[in-house]
Structure formats: C-alpha cells, structure tokens
C-alpha cells in the first residue's frame, strides 16, 4: 500500500517532495504538511521514507500478508554505507536487518571520465566503450576463440553450447 505521513512529526521541509519519482508527495497548502496526493500511483519505493529527516513517513504493508498494526522503519547512512531496516510486528516482535549500500567511501571511486585519457580517432571508430576491453576482464586468461579482433567477446559458431537456452 501507499505511503502515509504522520502529521504530528512532519515539519513540511519538502525533502519527500524533492525526491519522489512519482511526484505525488506534495505539501498541503493549508496544513503545510506533506501528503501523498495520489496513492494509486505510489510504488512504495520508499524514496520519501528514506529521505524524511523526521521519520514522519511510513508505508503500510498489504493486508493479505502483513496484518495491520506493524511498522517498518528505515535508516539509510551513506557515510557508514549501510541501510538498516526495523520491522515491528503488531505483537511487539522486532526484526532488524542491515545491508551494505556501498563497499567504498560514498562517491569516491566513481570515474570522473573528463579526467580520463582522451580517446583518439581509432578509439572513436572502434566498437569499444569507456574502459573496454580492460573492464571485460577477459584479458590474459581468455581462450583464443572467445575474443574477436575488435576486442569484444565472441564465439565461433561451431563452439556454441548445445541445447535449448533458458
């Protein structure tokens, strides 16, 4: 089910409005609190829930597999590189889950392509993308027939595996 806002916690900061991919989190002009204006178009992507500094947004699970009265809380920490979920059942049972969201300091290891060596004319004419063929990582241990002269993987027709492919 769609998200909803605890009116007493929301301070109308608008972080949810800014992030919602569906553009359905709006600030009510009268009460100045966030409100999901179109629950039918909510995907429960939790973008607003994670973005809310006041933890004022929640999503109710579907009644057929999540009986009413439960709570789902989430804390996303970029500096720690984790996302933590706390599920509270209506009988009080709590379950906590922590998952990594990144293995490296946030954003530090993303290529700045503008600083990479400029591709020459031959590269422009080739079929290779940025960092190819290196990043295909088939470099040295590749079997000779697995690679084309253009540097991309390929396989000779007579070496196809037999059978149906699913």
């Amino acid at each position, binding site marked *: *089910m*769609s998200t909803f806002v605890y009116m007493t916690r929301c301070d109308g900061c608008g972080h949810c409005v*800014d*992030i*919602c*991919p*569906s*553009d359905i989190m709006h600030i009510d002009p009268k009460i100045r609190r966030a409100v999901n204006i179109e*629950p*039918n*178009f*909510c*995907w*429960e*992507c*939790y*973008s607003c829930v994670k973005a809310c500094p006041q933890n004022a947004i929640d999503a109710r699970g*579907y*009644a057929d597999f999540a009986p009413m009265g439960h709570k789902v809380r989430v804390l*996303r920490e*970029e500096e720690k*590189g984790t*996302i933590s979920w706390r599920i509270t059942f209506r009988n009080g049972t709590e379950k906590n889950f922590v*998952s*990594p*969201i*990144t*293995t*490296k300091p*946030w*954003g*530090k290891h*993303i*290529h700045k*392509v*503008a600083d*990479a060596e*400029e*591709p020459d004319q031959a590269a*422009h004419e080739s079929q290779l*993308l*940025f*960092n*190819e063929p*290196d*990043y*295909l*990582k*088939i470099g040295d241990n*590749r079997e000779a027939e*697995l690679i084309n002269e253009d540097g*991309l*993987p*390929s*396989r000779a027709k007579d070496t*196809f*595996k037999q059978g*149906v*492919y*699913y």
Partner: protein
Amino acid sequence: MADHKTVYEDCDILIVGGGMAGTGATFESRYWGRDMNIVCVEKANIDRSGAVAQGLYAINCYMGTRWNENQPEDHVRYARNDLMGMVREDLALDMARHVDSCVHMFEEWGLPLMKNKEGRYQREGKWQIMIHGESYKPIVAEAAKKSASKIYNRVMITHLLKDESKDNRCGGAVGFNMRTGDFHVFRAKATIICAGGASHIFKPRAVGEGMGRTWYAPWSNGSCYALPICSRCKNDSNGKQNCFM
C-alpha cells in the same frame, strides 16, 4: 501562460530521461565528447528516478564472459527463444557484449555484489546475479552528476523538435518544469532518448488493497515510445527498455 518563462538551452548532446539508461548515457557521452555541452533532463530527481528508484536486488543480466559462464551469442539465443523470434539480434548481441564491463565498473564504484565460494558473482539464475542494490541508482546518478554539464531535474520533456534545415533530423526537445511551469526549449546537435517504458497498458492500475502493486514503475508513462512517434521520427527507435532486462 503569461507568468511562465521560456528557458532556452543549447547543447551538443541532450539526454532525455535520467533513469539508469539516461545517467549511463550521460556518463559515457562525457568520455567521448570532452568539451561538449552535455545536458540530462529528468522529470523527477536523478538520485531516485526511473524503475530503479527504490533499488534493485539483482542485476538481471550478466554474462560472466570472463569465467566462460555465458557468451554473448548464448544470450542472443536465449532472447530469441524467449521472445519467440521477435528480437533485434544485433541489439541483443551488443548489449551482451558490453554488459560485463559495465557491471565490473559498478563494482569498482562501490556497488556491493554478492560473491560465491569460488569468488564469482553469486547467481540466482542463468543470467541474474545478486547484489545489495539499495543505492544502485544513487551510485550511477553520482557518475552522471560528475559527467554532465548540466542536469535538469523535474523537467518533463513532452515533444521532440525537428531540425529546421535538415529533414528527418532531431534538433532537440521541449518540455515543462514540473514545479514552476516554465517552458524549456533544448536545442541539441544530438538527442538520446532514454525515457521510460509504459505501465498500465493492458490492465487498469491496481486499486483497493492491491493499490500500487505493480511490477513496473507506475510513473513510466510510455514517453520513450510517444516522443519519437509524436515527432514522426523515421529513426529506428529501438533498444527500448532493453537495459539489463
């Protein structure tokens, strides 16, 4: 309309849509076009936009060419079989040839990929590998932010422009700012359409207790199909919704 401004932007490469494809295209464009004005236009916020807004627990397509798990040709045969022959095989092959290097790059950027005992990526199917993908989209968005000359969030492209001098050539796009209502005109030398596919086509959207329970993003309104059709582009609009799916 009297209150609304018209904002012009001249760009070399215009990327319509800032989902996975759009942010990726922005990144790659910068590598090949160093001094170009590369502009990405997104109707939401690129940090959480498109069908990977909430994250993704798997990468649906990874060949594993380096371990000879699958080869690109295997993927073409799978796709052809799966879609009963209705497939552009050259596109399926191209996607398969490049997807591995892309995934390896994501790993370097910090995307947590699960590994099995042999140190290979953990599979949960012939093509799929498992990841901790809560921040899949923000990570790729970060790459786009580092690459783009300018990113327009909350601007919805509604129509493509045709080139004045050359017939059958796209000259940019127009759209509206979702917040201010400003009219945006993007004049571009090249336009890459990375807009979304379409949900809610065959069935009305779920209502009642099933509200929002849909496999595909409810905000994907089919502009990837509509934009080229509306402008009667004779271009081969292909590769739609192909990425990793």
